[in-house]
């Protein structure tokens, strides 16, 4: 669930990036070609595009801020007015002459008039009179064709029924997504096409060639017939090469090299290489085994071209994580820069080629993003390094580009074709797997994280991972040794930081799997007095026996369920079909649901919130509650106050005899045999309890006023 949401948000983000980036590119190109005016306009457009991204103010009225003398027809825009500019409007005079108005009206009236159409009687239609008509009707009935002209034919209706609304929605969403992806891809291709860097194209081509070769190899194994066709194409390329005499050292560059070759070793080598290339290309290939040789050759060439550093990196980073790969390469890049700054441009270029050449079905968005960054860095680097040794870089560029060019030509074409076909497929079919293949990037992130435990290095990451695992209903991975339960005193007291962390959450795994020191006991059970090997075997066996048993996961699951069960439930008061359409398959809108959902107040935090290995039942024990005090007695206003007064036990079990007696002395004690006189009026003056008052009142018909009471008091005192 969360992963999906994440994926969506990522996708949206990348889309936004795309949108922002696209106009930028346009802007760049525009500003180069046309004047400043256009640039400004496009800038405005860009700003609008960006502001419209948030979706609130889609359309902003264009306003002309200052009057300009020169009104160019190119500057006339229809935007802002909210309607299309019609050519006829432009042709019309500003003022319409009144004399023509009447004529126009008449014309319009005539135009609007239509011939009267008498509706045919329906019965007449349905009644079949002639045998021919009957036959036709029969046929129609048989084929379930409509006799009249309804909106949908029965077949169409059936098809509509076959597909539910949800399915249709899903399908539409898929199609939309596919279209969006296609458009991104197209945009990307366009942008790439516009890149002027020769080196970049060279690298791209090389990568494509490599890929094509690989594909060819695979094809050979899978589908020999198709491979043969491919072979033919390659053959054709060779023929073209032969005809064009491209690598015959007859070009401008080759001639200059030939002059230089006398003095410069490198130039000589370059020439030789080119000649070798020529030979290679013009060689006729016949057998499949030979193609392998050729491959070897190309690989050699590659190895010559590719510096060692890159190869190393490749060897190291053959994992599935592109991010890892990137960081690795950048690291090595750094190393390379430190070692010798002269070689700087080349490894970068190759890196690009790598990333391009990968072209796995990973994520195009991802690659795009990476590419942007790389290009930026490349630009910077190249700016820096241009001064260092421009000639050399130029040379390398040229040579390499010349070499691969012919190869690439064909292969690139092929690739393009493939791409197109793929695109077409995507757009036409729009099936689910295709879509999934198109954008697995955000979804892939999590599995990647999970797959690579060595990436996890810090405690926070670990914790986060743990949380994720919680969410994914997966068992937390065994964690670093250092992160041990705080409370166990036999732990190494080495990491105070970790301890702080642990207060938040106690790791279950550690709690159960800490290596506790074994007891040294003098008397060992007799069974234990066997050989050590046997003991070890036994331990092994125990370990194996418990390997499958996932006690922890079960417990965590149970706890999660308990927590869910104890949470207060929300009350949903939505009435489906109230104020909107209802029926099977229709759900009340999210807005409505949100409005009528009464959220339960969040209860107090659970007692076992931070105790992973404990489930404490939070249910109220009503049996005990029946014995508890539920009404606060008079002078107390808060239950804490009252609780404090009943905290000391008064029973003889908890007190000494004397204290018990003292605590339990009754307020009123009657002595056996002692005469208790009835209450007199004089007594009332002292004790003004309500009951005695009542009795007095009942006895005396006179009402006792306060004055009277005072008198009574006085008399009693006397």
């Amino acid at each position, binding site marked *: 669930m969360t992963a999906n949401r994440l994926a969506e948000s990522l996708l949206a983000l990348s889309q936004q990036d795309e949108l922002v980036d696209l106009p930028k590119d346009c802007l760049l190109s525009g500003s180069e070609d046309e004047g400043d005016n256009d640039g400004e306009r496009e800038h405005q457009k860009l700003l609008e595009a960006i502001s419209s991204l948030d979706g609130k103010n889609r359309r902003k009225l264009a306003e002309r801020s200052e009057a300009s003398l020169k009104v160019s027809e190119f500057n006339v825009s229809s935007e802002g007015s909210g309607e299309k500019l019609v050519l006829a409007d432009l042709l019309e005079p500003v003022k319409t002459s009144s004399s023509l108005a009447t004529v126009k009206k008449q014309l319009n009236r005539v135009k609007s008039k239509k011939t009267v159409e008498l509706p045919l009687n329906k019965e007449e239609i349905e009644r079949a009179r002639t045998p021919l008509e009957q036959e036709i009707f029969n046929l129609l009935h048989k084929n379930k064709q409509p006799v009249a002209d309804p909106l949908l034919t029965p077949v169409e209706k059936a098809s509509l029924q076959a597909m539910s609304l949800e399915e249709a929605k899903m399908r539409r969403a898929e199609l939309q997504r596919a279209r969006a992806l296609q458009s991104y891809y197209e945009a990307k291709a366009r942008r790439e096409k516009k890149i002027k860097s020769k080196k970049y194209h060279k690298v791209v081509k090389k990568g494509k060639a490599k890929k094509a070769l690989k594909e060819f190899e695979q094809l050979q194994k899978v589908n020999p017939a198709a491979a043969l066709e491919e072979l033919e194409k390659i053959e054709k390329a060779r023929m073209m090469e032969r005809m064009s005499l491209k690598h015959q050292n007859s070009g401008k560059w080759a001639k200059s090299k030939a002059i230089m070759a006398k003095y410069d070793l490198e130039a000589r080598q370059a020439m030789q290489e080119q000649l070798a290339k020529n030979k290679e290309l013009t060689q006729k290939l016949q057998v499949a085994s030979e193609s392998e040789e050729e491959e070897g050759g190309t690989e050699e060439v590659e190895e010559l071209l590719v510096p060692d550093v890159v190869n190393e990196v490749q060897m190291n980073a053959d994992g599935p994580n592109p991010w890892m790969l990137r960081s690795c390469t950048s690291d090595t890049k750094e190393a390379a820069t430190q070692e010798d700054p002269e070689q700087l441009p080349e490894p970068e270029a190759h890196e690009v080629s790598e990333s391009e050449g990968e072209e796995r079905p990973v994520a195009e968005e991802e690659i795009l993003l990476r590419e942007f960054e790389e290009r930026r860095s490349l630009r910077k680097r190249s700016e820096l390094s241009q001064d260092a040794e421009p000639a050399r870089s130029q040379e390398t560029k040229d040579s390499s580009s010349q070499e691969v060019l012919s190869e690439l030509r064909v292969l690139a074409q092929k690739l393009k074709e493939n791409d197109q076909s793929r695109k077409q497929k995507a757009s036409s079919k729009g099936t689910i797997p295709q879509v999934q293949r198109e954008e697995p990037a955000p979804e892939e992130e999590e599995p990647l994280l999970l797959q690579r435990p060595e990436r996890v290095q810090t405690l926070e990451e670990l914790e986060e991972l743990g949380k994720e695992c919680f969410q994914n209903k997966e068992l937390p991975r065994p964690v670093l040794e250092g992160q041990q339960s705080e409370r166990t005193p036999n732990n190494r007291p080495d990491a105070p930081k970790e301890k702080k962390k642990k207060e938040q959450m106690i790791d279950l795994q550690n*709690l159960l799997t800490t290596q506790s020191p074994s*007891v040294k*006991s003098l008397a060992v059970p007799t069974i234990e007095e066997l050989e050590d090997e046997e003991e070890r075997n036994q331990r092994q066996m125990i370990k194996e026996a418990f390997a499958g048993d996932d006690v922890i996961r079960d417990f965590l699951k149970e706890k999660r369920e308990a927590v869910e069960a104890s949470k207060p439930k929300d009350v949903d008061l939505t009435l489906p079909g109230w104020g909107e359409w209802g029926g099977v398959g229709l759900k009340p809108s999210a807005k409505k649901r949100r409005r009528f959902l009464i959220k339960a107040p969040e209860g107090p935090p659970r007692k076992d919130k931070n105790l992973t290995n404990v489930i404490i039942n939070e249910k109220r024990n009503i049996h005990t509650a*029946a014995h508890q005090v539920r009404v606060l007695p008079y002078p107390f206003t808060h*239950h804490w106050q009252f609780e404090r007064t009943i905290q000391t036990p008064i029973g003889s079990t908890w007190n000494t005899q004397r*204290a018990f007696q003292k605590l339990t002395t009754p307020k009123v004690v009657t002595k056996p045999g*002692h005469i208790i006189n009835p209450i007199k009026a004089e007594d009332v003056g002292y004790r003004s309890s309500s009951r005695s008052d009542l009795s007095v009142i009942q006895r005396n018909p006179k009402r006792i006023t306060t004055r009277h009471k005072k008198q009574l008091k006085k008399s009693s005192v006397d």
Partner: protein
Amino acid sequence: METAPKPGRDVPPKKDKLQTKRKKPRRYWEEETVPTRDGASPGPPCNKKNRELRPQRRKNAHILKKSRISKKPQVPKKPREWKNPESQRSLSGAQDPFPGPAPVSVEVVQKFCRIDKSRKLPRSKAKTRSRLEVAEAEEEETSIKAARSELLLAEEPGFLEGEDGEDTAKICQADIVEAVDIASAAKHFDLNLRQFGPYRLNYSRTGRHLAFGGRRGHVAALDWVTKKLMCEINVMEAVRDIRFLHSEALLAVAQNRWLHIYDNQGIELHCIRRCDRVTRLEFLPFHFLLATASETGFLTYLDVSVGKIVAALNARAGRLDVMSQNPYNAVIHLGHSNGTVSLWSPAMKEPLAKILCHRGGVRAVAVDSTGTYMATSGLDHQLKIFDLRGTYQPLSTRTLPHGAGHLAFSQRGLLVAGMGDVVNIWAGQGKASPPSLEQPYLTHRLSGPVHGLQFCPFEDVLGVGHSGGITSMLVPGAGEPNFDGLESNPYRSRKQRQEWEVKALLEKVPAELICLDPRALAKVDVISLEQGKKERIERLGYDPEAKSPFQPKPKQKGRSSTASLVKRKRKVMDEEHRDKVRQSLQQQQQQQQQQQQHKEVKAKSTGARPSALDRFVH
């Protein structure tokens, strides 16, 4: 403990004040008799008070025990330093060197105080405050009295000390028996009963009687101190467990099929068929409940005073064969095969708590007498001690070579574990500390694998049932030296027992009061209280306890004009409003501070993590 007898050092002056403040309840007959009594009694009024403060003889202290085991000569007790204040008025006119009541140690008094004064109360009215003061004074008084009567707990626990770093675990039973007096030596014995298989055993609450049952049907009960056999029968059925009920006169035996109850003559009194296939028994003495855990996975509570089944709870965890009770709150602990220990009360259908203790199944559980620590051992060969005071975290863990199959705590917190044919005993630093598992205190090897373990109450004796019979071994410092003669008296006569039985039945605690926190009863049921308040407000239509709005007093000389009234009202309202704003501002500030702290902590923690950008810093 002992404090120098300085006059009025430990007794706070406040107490005296409070005592004088608190009047003796006036009796209606006293009014007339007071003058005559005053004339009759020769002593001054202070005399009575002094007499009151004298230590009360505690009811349980009338029997002292002699047989304490110790290798060290006991330090002779200090002579009583407190003298009777009556001597102050001796004929010779000598002055009392220690006038006033005897001082009491503050720590001891603190032990008996139960009011948690750390919690700050909301502002209370004068009347409420006076009530609270009275309650506090009462508490202080009673706790001082209790502290004074500590003096009567004359017996000290036994102990075992090695000479110059000698490991006590190396001392074998024979050495101990040699060192102690004859009476104590007689407490070490072996019963050779090889015929009827491994034995389970149980001591009665007083520690005087011992019942044991062999797996092959042998059931016997005896007064193990005098070795007088009460009964011996063979039930002709496998015996899973055996337990005394509230007194030594009744015996519950979990047999292969059903639960049977015998008396001390061996006569079968009951066969309880509703408790079938019982594997473990546990008796809760204050509730008169016999808890049975069965193979079928049911935990059944049988009220033995009325013979009714109080609750039958399905633990939903398969066969139950690990059970123990928490003597502090009468909660039953069950160990399960999935490594959890669940805590049960008859009042709840679900467990009160569930603790994941081991990776493998739980083999044994034991809870100490204060209810603070729980020891568990599992199939993963680990022995753990858990804190039961709310955190349920392991305090210490040890891996045992073979894993412990049986565990038991003594009254003073010693832990014994039976592993194969060996028992290991660990001791802690004091009574309230958990046993430290680093070094065993004692070890002993038996003639067969252990099947049952229990420390004898009030004795330094551990009873071990094994396949070769019963062994009673001496463990110095295991038992509580001072017993309450009215509660569980090992030397009581038949009459005393009957008396006690009646009283105990009268004081029986209802089964539904069992919960994790036994002091919960001393708390107000807040939920019902709030609900009641709400209902009352609904019924009345207004809140009777709400603060009434301010009404300005009428004043004279034209100052009571409407405008001034309104002004005064407004002033009060504004003041209230300002208070509210101030409070909310404070809260906000606090929140911000907390957030900042959080951020700082986070920043620190993130700072510790090596960032990808770090390499650009140099």
